């Protein structure tokens, strides 16, 4: 069956160019980059190249790039590093719509480690309450962590403005840019964040590789303790193949950025317009403008997300409801709840997230499949006629 893949915020296809770049490093150039022989050294050189490519992608210096095993590790590492840098500070700040890699970690720190946590709320459009954020900054604040783009709705936070204000108070600022990478331009020098997380598998590199950018001069303490890899900032033999792949993926992401903002955005807008037109009682979640160009979160009243997804699945269409991480839970996504999306449409919210591989044709397939699916489910819903 033809697959229509519109779940790119969950994960992406590894690009052919990336596979090609990686392949020789499995069975042919498999040396350990730390080794005292040319065979390992050539891998080390290739990793240096990859580090430079990743640095270029976000306008950082290569030695500001630490390779990690995923976005989650980057996020965890950033927060723990900040807490170690300021052991006397016991207050930390984030939003109430973060990915579990930050949200669950903050909850853990609150419940088990005695930290005072401010979860800054968002409004109905998913935009951050900046007044509350700035009011909560204090001398006791160790770190502020806010996502650049929301994985479920695509809503963007004004990271550059926030970074300036937070830095002015001498407080560390981290941003989870896992969903922003490859979709909006990132320039760390301009934005001035202290730390920034990326994940490879959201930008057509493999799963299981991440990046933590740490600004020069920001005190850092390692999360994984072991060998001297990553200049002593992360123990563990380097994931050479994936690092090399990520380097190439970053180059490609830069190339494709204009396409994201034009063709992909048009596709998303086309899909959005058609669905709103054809399906009554449907509504877009999140601000329409301050939003990633590839993401559409749309709620359908009186029906439930899993059922919709399974009907789409039968037509080969891949999408998601809430984040790919919510499993077994009956609660609708914490992001939509934070935005006070009514239960009626929150439960029936579907996220379509596109990439440059998508076509208009595919958008039409989605519309044709979704219209009867929603109809069918509404027919059996006790809440539809109300």
């Amino acid at each position, binding site marked *: 069956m033809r697959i229509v893949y519109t779940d790119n915020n969950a994960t992406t296809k590894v690009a052919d160019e990336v596979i090609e770049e990686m392949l020789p490093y499995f069975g042919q150039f498999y040396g350990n980059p730390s080794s005292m022989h040319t065979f390992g050294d050539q891998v080390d050189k290739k990793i240096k190249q990859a580090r430079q490519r990743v640095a270029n992608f976000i306008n950082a210096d290569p030695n500001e790039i630490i390779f990690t095993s995923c976005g989650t590790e980057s996020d965890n590492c950033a927060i723990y590093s900040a807490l170690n840098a300021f052991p006397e500070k016991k207050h930390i700040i984030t939003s109430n719509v973060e990915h579990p890699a930050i949200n669950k970690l903050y909850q853990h720190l609150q419940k088990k480690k005695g930290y005072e946590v401010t979860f800054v709320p968002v409004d109905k459009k998913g935009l951050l309450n900046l007044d509350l954020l700035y009011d909560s900054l204090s001398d006791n604040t160790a770190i502020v962590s806010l996502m650049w783009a929301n994985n479920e709705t695509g809503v963007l936070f004004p990271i550059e403005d926030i970074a300036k204000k937070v830095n002015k108070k001498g407080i560390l600022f981290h941003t989870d840019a896992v969903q922003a990478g490859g979709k909006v331009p990132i320039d760390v020098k301009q934005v001035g964040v202290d730390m920034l997380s990326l994940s490879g598998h959201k930008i057509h590199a493999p799963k299981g590789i991440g990046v933590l950018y740490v600004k020069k001069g920001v005190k850092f303490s390692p999360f994984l303790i072991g060998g001297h890899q990553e200049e002593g900032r992360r123990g563990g033999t380097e994931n050479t193949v994936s690092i090399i792949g990520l380097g190439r993926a970053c180059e490609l992401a830069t190339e494709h950025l204009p396409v994201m903002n034009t063709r992909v955005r048009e596709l998303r807008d086309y899909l959005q317009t058609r669905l709103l037109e054809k399906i009554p009682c449907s509504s877009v979640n999140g601000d329409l403008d301050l939003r990633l160009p590839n993401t559409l979160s749309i709620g359908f009243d*009186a*029906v*439930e997300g*899993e*059922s919709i997804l*399974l009907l789409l699945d*039968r037509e080969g269409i891949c999408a998601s409801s809430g984040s790919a991480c919510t*499993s*077994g*839970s*009956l*609660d*609708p996504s914490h992001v939509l709840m934070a935005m006070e999306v009514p*239960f*009626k449409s929150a*439960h029936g919210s579907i996220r379509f997230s596109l990439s440059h591989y998508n076509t208009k044709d595919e958008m039409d397939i989605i519309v044709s499949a979704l219209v009867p699916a929603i109809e069918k489910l509404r*027919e*059996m*819903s*006790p*809440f539809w006629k109300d």
Partner: protein
Amino acid sequence: MWDYTDKVKDHFLKPRNVGELEGANAVGETGSLSCGDALKLFLKVDENEKIVDATFMTFGCASAVASSSALTEIIKGMTLDEASKITNDDISDYLGGLPKEKMHCSVMGQSALKKAIADYRGIQILEKPGEMVCECFDVTDLEIIEAVKANSLETTEDVTDYLKAGGGCGQCLERIEEIIESVKAKG
């Protein structure tokens, strides 16, 4: 993703007995919009207390739909006495099993049926007291506290053995552990 049996898939894609039932003389409702799962069961019961027709309307996931559909198929033709013995396991068995994360869907079916029967007989069912802890098996905190005290239960596994609670999706295990510990703390 869930491993749904072919039976579940079939009942989800082609649900039997969907819709409001004209002339229904017993209705049972359970769940709510906020829960993400809701079922409205309609029965037509004849003078011999035999269920001559049954339909449903469901809001929820695939297994909620399939469980509802299965339930109506199972109970059609039964007397109310027979139907009142139907458990969530019967529904799940009929479907060839449900993923453990989805056991609560069959519990929902059992609960709607109980309410419909009570509705017919004019009995009022009291809401269980306490706060819901295990949605999969419909177990409240008060029930858990009682069981822990009465049987000196030590671990979440003990609680699951006694009450089933926690033996489904596992979402409630942390809460169960908290309850055990608070009981222990109070001695």
